[in-house]
């Protein structure tokens, strides 16, 4: 399965990537840029992430080589913390 990442220096936080790949890309509350919070696990998610990358207006979403899954739990934890913080 292909892996993706966001170049935060390019991202303007428009959220179009989240519209395309809602299960994988988020703009955490309070953040200015999007993050890949969960690498694709299915063909559908992979296709959605590819679309998000292809149609990203800043060109800020890239396919990355190597296994990014190690970072996934941290990213998920971080997102959950941010959501909790926003809720409180």
């Amino acid at each position, binding site marked *: 399965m292909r892996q993706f990442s966001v170049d935060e220096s*390019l991202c*303007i936080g*428009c*959220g*179009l990537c989240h*519209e*395309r790949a809602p299960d994988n890309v988020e703009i955490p509350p309070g953040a200015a840029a999007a993050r890949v919070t969960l690498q694709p696990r299915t063909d559908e998610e992979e296709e959605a992430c590819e*679309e998000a990358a*292809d*149609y*990203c*207006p*800043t*060109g800020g979403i890239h396919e990355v080589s190597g296994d990014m899954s190690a970072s996934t739990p941290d990213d998920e934890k971080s997102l959950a913390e941010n959501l909790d913080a926003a809720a409180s």
Partner: protein
Amino acid sequence: MATIEEVLTPVRTLWKFDYGTHNKALRDLYEVAKKEQWNAATDVPWDREIDTSGDILDPRQDMFQDFDFVKALPDDQRTELSVRRAAWTLSQFLHGEQGALLCCGQLVEVVPDIDGKLYAATQVVDEARHVEVFYRYIQRLDRVYPIDPNLQAVINAILQADLWQMKCVGMQVIVEGLAMGSFKIMKEGTRDELLRKIVELTAMDEARHVSYGLIYMKDELPRMPDPDRERVEDFALMAVQTMVNSGRGSGGQSSQAALFADLDIDMAAAVTEVQEKMADPEFRAQRPNAFRDYVIPQLLRLGIISDRTAPQYREMGFEV
């Protein structure tokens, strides 16, 4: 400045009687556009005063601040020039937004499918809102300055282009990409909260506009006959060359002459310094560059910068 100018355009208007969705990505973008509309009259904090005590433009974006002829000015004149410079720059965005309004009105007519027409219709409203918001801000800041002749030449070329793909690349990828990147830089650097809010809202709209160009052209360009695709490549090169050269002292600087009226500036020396500094690759490399960061990469991804045209982009200093 004449308040009305006529441009004759060869628009080939297309009806489409198949109303079904054929490009889901475009239809999805249309849905996002409907959700993300905002009101320039009520969603902008117009009750805030403009703060002219600090930098209105990002100091990295306002190259004048590094010029000797500006540094030599008394404080009050330097502040006055900074305000005028911001108004001039924002005036170019105002005129660019009107140009986008006109071009996007054409896109509604010329694109061949209903998904593209519906989305373009939302963009027409976006552009109207941008004209409204920038005009209102500039009026409070200083006054509207005339359009830069090179910017107008590019927009007129887009309006007069006979292929809809030229219009789409020229406006949606190049002009909108430049605006989106510039607003990001402006948002990060301005000290004025009112302008920050305006460019933040506007950049979100511009992002959709660029995405529209990417969605459409990703599918369309590979389908085009070679001669037509080469015409699109040449058109993109012309647009980039014209706008880049404008920023480097051809036309663009002369159109800023009105900024210097009543200030103690030696115009000949100022023009020489501007042209020398803008010809210096190191000086340019130190500054944020929306062309380099947001326009050229997208043209590369779409394959619009080909082996045939790449050398001319390199001559402009782009790594392609």
